């Protein structure tokens, strides 16, 4: 067990590497109840979210559709990254990180002054993720009758029934579901999934899976001092429509105009060793950046990392491992899709 965002969570249930592989080849089960569910409703909900989030919730036309977004400080720093679901007219659901949940809630409450809306933290809800190529097939027969339509869910869509909510989302780069449900029912579903041949997976596998999938981890790859433009999340910033004045827009525009801003990149170590968070990156004798997330990739059998480097860092980068300088290769994210490497090595 390890501390994580105020929770005690299992790092693994036996072997992190086997848990990783089971998600890439079959189906794995994660307890992600540490994530906080926030429900937002009211006639000003859309207007509020259009100001609060760097991505544009107005893009969500169909109920159930999800949007990934950063929530920014006025200076462009990332307060949190979250998923926002369009539940129904004037109703939205956000899922935020555990460690930032209290901070998020007080920030949102302060920003909501003058808007007609209600914000409710659903601490009584639990959440599990079933991920892998066989995840949906193994989960569908175990869902309550009201959620049978989950069989037809498209990627990045969700649907609810009572206090249950199921979405075709995840943090592993595999197909699967995330299921929000009452705490009183989560153990029962967990046990039925285990019986159906879904393997429990810990925080370790969750981290190596998301790293291979090129997905950011808040607190590692970005925080309040980093803008989405310096952590690979430029694609989540909706500049259009031009008139939408979201929090942080002005500062972000200045950062976007600055050609010196740092770049975010994937790294592959071809030699033996493991790249880890906070390791310095060198271009010759010059320190040009730092690893923000690193680890061993079970799919590639090599170490991979995500890093932030200066704009002029170039392609020839090295890392210092146990007193030796080893070359690292810059690669495009993600590293792995559908269990296969996205580049030759």
């Amino acid at each position, binding site marked *: 067990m390890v501390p994580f965002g105020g929770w005690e969570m299992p790092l693994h249930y036996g072997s992190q*590497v086997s848990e990783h592989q089971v998600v890439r080849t079959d189906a794995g089960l994660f307890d992600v109840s540490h994530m906080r569910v926030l429900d937002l409703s009211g006639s000003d909900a859309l207007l509020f979210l259009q100001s609060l989030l760097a991505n544009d919730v107005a893009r969500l036309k169909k109920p159930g559709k999800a949007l990934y977004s950063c929530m920014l400080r006025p200076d462009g720093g990332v307060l949190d990254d979250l998923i926002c679901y369009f539940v129904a007219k004037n109703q939205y659901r956000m899922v935020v990180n555990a460690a930032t949940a209290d901070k998020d809630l007080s920030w949102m409450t302060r920003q909501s002054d003058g808007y007609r809306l209600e914000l409710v933290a659903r601490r009584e809800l639990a959440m599990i993720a079933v991920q892998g190529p066989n995840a949906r097939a193994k989960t569908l027969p175990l869902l309550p009758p009201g959620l049978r339509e989950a069989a037809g869910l498209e990627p990045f869509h969700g649907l609810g029934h009572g206090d249950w909510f199921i979405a075709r989302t995840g943090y592993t780069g595999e197909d699967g579901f995330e299921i929000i449900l009452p705490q009183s029912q989560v153990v029962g579903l967990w046990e039925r999934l285990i019986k159906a041949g879904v393997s429990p997976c810990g925080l370790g596998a969750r981290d190596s899976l998301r790293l291979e999938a090129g997905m950011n981890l808040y607190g590692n790859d970005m925080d309040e001092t980093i803008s989405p433009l310096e952590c690979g999340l430029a694609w989540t910033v909706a500049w259009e429509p031009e008139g939408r004045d979201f929090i942080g827009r002005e500062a972000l525009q200045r950062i976007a105009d600055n050609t010196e801003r740092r770049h975010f990149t994937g790294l592959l170590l071809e030699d033996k*060793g493991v790249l880890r968070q906070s390791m310095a990156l060198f271009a010759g004798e010059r320190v040009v950046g730092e690893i923000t997330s690193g680890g*061993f990739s079970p799919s590639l059998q090599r170490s991979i990392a995500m890093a932030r480097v200066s704009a002029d860092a170039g392609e020839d980068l090295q890392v210092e491992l*146990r007193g030796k300088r080893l070359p690292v290769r810059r690669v495009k994210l993600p590293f792995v899709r559908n269990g296969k490497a996205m580049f030759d090595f």
Partner: protein
Amino acid sequence: MNELPNDLRYASSHEWIRNEGDGTATVGITDHAQAQLGDLVYIELPELGSQLEAGKECAVVESVKAASDIYSPVGGEVIAVNEALADAPETINESAFADGWIFRLRMADPAQLEELLDADAYQELVDEEVH
């Protein structure tokens, strides 16, 4: 956890050593050590022929979680290394006390073995760490 083998000696830094009775000894890391490290992904073996000092680092194991130095429990010359570990470091996770042995050395002074822990004393140390 399995019973600790009684025929081994243990270092407080979690290596085991077996006296082969011919002036040589075999070294590995304990089952407790591998469990704490998690899945091993790389190992840097000592160099064949190198001279090791008691209590000095001589190899590195790297797991999904962390890199960890291995210290030679006694001094001596490395006469064999477990090459199979280079491609299959997980052998240490599966069989820390047997197939996962790391290196063998010709002891400079077998009396150094007496300074190490026996199974009971090492078990006590592990119990203290866990609680």
